């Protein structure tokens, strides 16, 4: 009977090998997939109870976990909820957004860089803790931006983004209307669902980070890109004479486009500097038409259009400069037609000009630290693209300074400091007010901060809306906050 016993032994070996292979496949290979399954409440329940790391701005936490005495051990709290909600996002039982989502591995303690910490925790039998995330945000600038935007009214729809031109660090990112992430992090799940439903259905879209996710026509601020393309073409410089006048006949069309204030820009032939300074539509319509769609698109893409660049904050929408026909291309020169941009993108345009023509990749996470505060990772500044040559950047800077000193962007002027800026007022449909844009940087000779402001809708009367009057003072306040801490 021994031969069949040996056969049975082999059969049993196969059974047990199958069990072991299947267990390995399930617990090792499929482990990640199972853990991420949306039906898996186990992971989220544990994460919810764990002491999550803090999100820090300067020395102060804008999100942290405090001990809680209900069924979960810790409660996530946001000490400055409204001001920082677009950055921190929220951490609810159901989902996460913002930094809470992008840095979830570090904050929850699951990051592979925290392996040693985790091992020590396991051996010493202490509960695992998450690491801390240090943001690049300058608290003064953030406050200035938030207060400035809110000064236009509690319900104003708009956003402010400030960048350090030499590194790409995001110094301020504010969006309004905003929300209180504390209400979504609550352990009372019934009220969380109710609040979420309410926020989700609010037509003002408070959950959207307008700084990175709202794309709108950039209006006259886009003239910076048109001017950059013109100078880069080699045919123009700051003193070149360009077409002015009171209106422009769109190619292949019967439409004539006038200037914003109905004026004639100071003559039929004006310098490029003056054209930018008075934000002359006629000049930039004809320049864009002359440069053509391809050159314009190339220049826009060098500044970051048609792609996304912010990697550590979810939800960035790509600013678009698509292929267009001739009349549309002409209109794109003044930031109309199909051109759309986020406030972050327009801040990158200013920052690129400020940084000798090099656009740095924007980032919001400066450092990642272990629970014991040892440094795990520090984001290195990296070059995104060279938008224009150094000399072009210099000429554009001088033109923007003139725009602040003698032109439409006067509202951003800071006494004793050379400020470079550009206004924008983008038309939308007749039925709704135009969007007010403003972008600037300072000091012009050694730029420390570049800002973009978008006011999408406010209580200001329609005829008073202009990029300079609405956005200028906010940009000025943010720049001052960075320059005079």
């Amino acid at each position, binding site marked *: 009977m021994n031969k*069949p*016993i040996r*056969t049975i032994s082999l059969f049993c*070996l196969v059974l047990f090998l199958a*069990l072991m292979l299947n267990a390995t496949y399930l617990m090792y290979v499929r482990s990640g997939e199972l853990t991420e399954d949306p039906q898996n409440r*186990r*992971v989220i329940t544990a994460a919810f109870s764990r002491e999550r790391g803090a999100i820090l701005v300067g020395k102060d936490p804008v999100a942290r976990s405090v001990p809680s005495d209900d069924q979960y051990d810790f409660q996530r709290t946001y000490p400055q909820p409204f001001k920082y909600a677009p950055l921190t996002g929220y951490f609810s039982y159901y989902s996460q957004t913002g930094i809470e989502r992008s840095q979830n591995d570090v904050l929850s303690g699951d990051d592979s860089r925290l392996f040693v910490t985790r091992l020590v925790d396991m051996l010493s039998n202490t509960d695992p803790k998450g690491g801390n995330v240090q943001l690049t945000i300058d608290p003064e600038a953030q406050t200035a931006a938030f207060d400035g935007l809110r000064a236009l009214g509690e319900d104003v729809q708009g956003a402010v983004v400030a960048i350090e031109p030499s590194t790409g660090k995001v110094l301020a990112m504010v969006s309004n209307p905003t929300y209180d992430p504390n209400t979504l992090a609550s352990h009372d799940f019934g009220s969380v669902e109710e609040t979420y439903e309410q926020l989700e259905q609010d037509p003002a879209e408070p959950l959207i980070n307008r700084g990175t996710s709202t794309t709108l026509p950039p209006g006259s601020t886009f003239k910076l890109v048109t001017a950059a393309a013109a100078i880069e073409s080699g045919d123009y410089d700051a003193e070149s004479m360009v077409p002015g006048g009171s209106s422009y006949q769109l190619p292949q069309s019967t439409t004539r486009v006038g200037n914003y204030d109905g004026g004639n820009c100071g003559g039929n032939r004006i310098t490029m500097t003056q054209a930018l300074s008075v934000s002359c539509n006629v000049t930039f319509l004809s320049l864009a038409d002359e440069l053509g769609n391809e050159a314009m698109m190339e220049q826009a893409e060098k500044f970051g259009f048609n792609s996304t660049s912010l990697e550590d904050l979810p939800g960035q929408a790509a600013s678009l400069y698509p292929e267009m026909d001739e009349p549309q291309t002409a209109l794109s020169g003044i930031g109309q037609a199909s051109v759309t941009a986020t406030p972050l993108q327009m801040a990158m345009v200013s920052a690129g000009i400020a940084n000798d023509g090099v656009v740095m990749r924007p980032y919001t996470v400066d450092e990642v630290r272990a629970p014991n505060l040892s440094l795990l990772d520090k984001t290195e500044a990296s070059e995104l693209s060279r938008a224009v040559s150094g000399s072009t950047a210099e000429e554009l800077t001088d033109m923007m300074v003139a725009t602040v000193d003698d032109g439409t962007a006067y509202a951003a002027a800071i006494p004793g400091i050379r400020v470079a800026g550009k206004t924008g007022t983008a038309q939308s449909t007749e039925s709704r007010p135009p969007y007010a844009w403003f972008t600037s940087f300072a000091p012009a000779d050694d730029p420390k901060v570049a800002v973009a402001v978008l006011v999408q809708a406010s209580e200001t009367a329609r005829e008073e809306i202009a990029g300079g009057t609405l956005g200028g003072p906010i940009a000025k306040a943010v720049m001052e906050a960075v320059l005079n801490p």
Partner: protein
Amino acid sequence: MSQNHSLMDFVHRQRRGAELFLLLLALAVGIGAYAAVGLGMEGTIPADIAGYGGWLTALIVVAHVAIRLFAPYADPVLLPLVAALNGLGLAVIHRLDLDDTAQCIDNDTFARQQLIWMTLGVVLFVATLALLRDHRLLQRLTYTTGLTAIVLLLLPMVPFIGNTVNGAKIWISVGPFSFQPGEVAKVLLVIAFAGYLVLHRDALALAGRRVLFIDLPRGRDLGPILGMWAVSMFILVFQRDLGSSLLFFGIFLIMLYVATERPGWLVVGTALFAAGAFAGWQAFGHVQNRVNIWLDPMAYYDQNPGSGQLVEGLFGMGWGGLIGRGFGEGAPCRIPYAESDFIVPAIGEELGLTAVLAVILCYGLIVERALRIALISRDGFGKLMAVGLGSIFALQVFVVVGGVTGLIPLTGLTTPFLSYGGSSLVANWVVIALLLRISDQARRPVPRLSATDAGSDSESTQVVKLK
């Protein structure tokens, strides 16, 4: 013949010292796991660690001493494997007792009860070794055990004492005690099969028609297999217990194949069971349901009857990963019946793939030892019994672990020595005692043959010294 001589001269060593050393390791697993549960769940080593550890040690020592006294040549690896598994199971059940989350709040004394059952198991283990000095005595009871097994299997169908738990009619209740007669029946069935087959193997081995290199059995010999098939189908249909049905028929088939050395029986048996199972799948919603869940567990997560239990187990094991969350850091209480059928996922969640593989290996070794005993056993009855008892573990572990890890459709069976449940634990301790008894007989030095007989056909003229 000279080779035969050297074989005859080979004497197995007792290896009781090795067994004692392995038992120390097994105790370290059991008591260490208990301490780790205390640390993980309550932050301190449990106050009763000395009492608990002492009791566990005493049980193991008693079992070890019983082997030294009654079966000195028995296999030295089986008892340590069982001690380790039983100790780990106790610790995990204790961990679930300590959990106060909603699903686990009711069970607080399972580990205590399990320890009592283990004590009873060890008592029966010692009694089996002490009273049954030669396993061949059981051969006389072939038909008695067979009949008893059938009666036991039918008991849950009897009104008043039969008890339906989760759709399966496999329990009986007498007063406060409940009991799964199937656990005892499987041991009795193995004894009955072995006794029957060793007598009738020659007739059953006669070849019939030859199809594709395989000799199929003769039609007139199909009686026993058809009878056993009918019993399995009866269990499947009336007790709704797919696992036991598969287990009983599988054991019978394996023993039949070993007894007759005819692969043809495997073909006939597999075909019969496949046909029966297919008919069952066609006819019964609960079987279809099991198969559908197996094919796509995630899709049935929220349904009732659904795959919530299975999927929670899968989630738990996935979360445990390579080294597990550690005792107290997982959420095994999310899995209904984590202490019985789903104890392997509970182990996987908190102790990881490492522990699951170790557990599977322990079972693998138990089966390996059982089959080795069958190989070296000198009598047909012993061989068949050892194969049958080993196959119980192999099939049962495959069905339950394969079920909870999604390898095969889930069917309810206990995990030997790990799961909470008295009937299963006690029955399995007796199974181990029987295996050790056969092993002792097989490894014991062959009684000296008289000089005149030396060189003749030793197998047929062997004189067995009877006490």
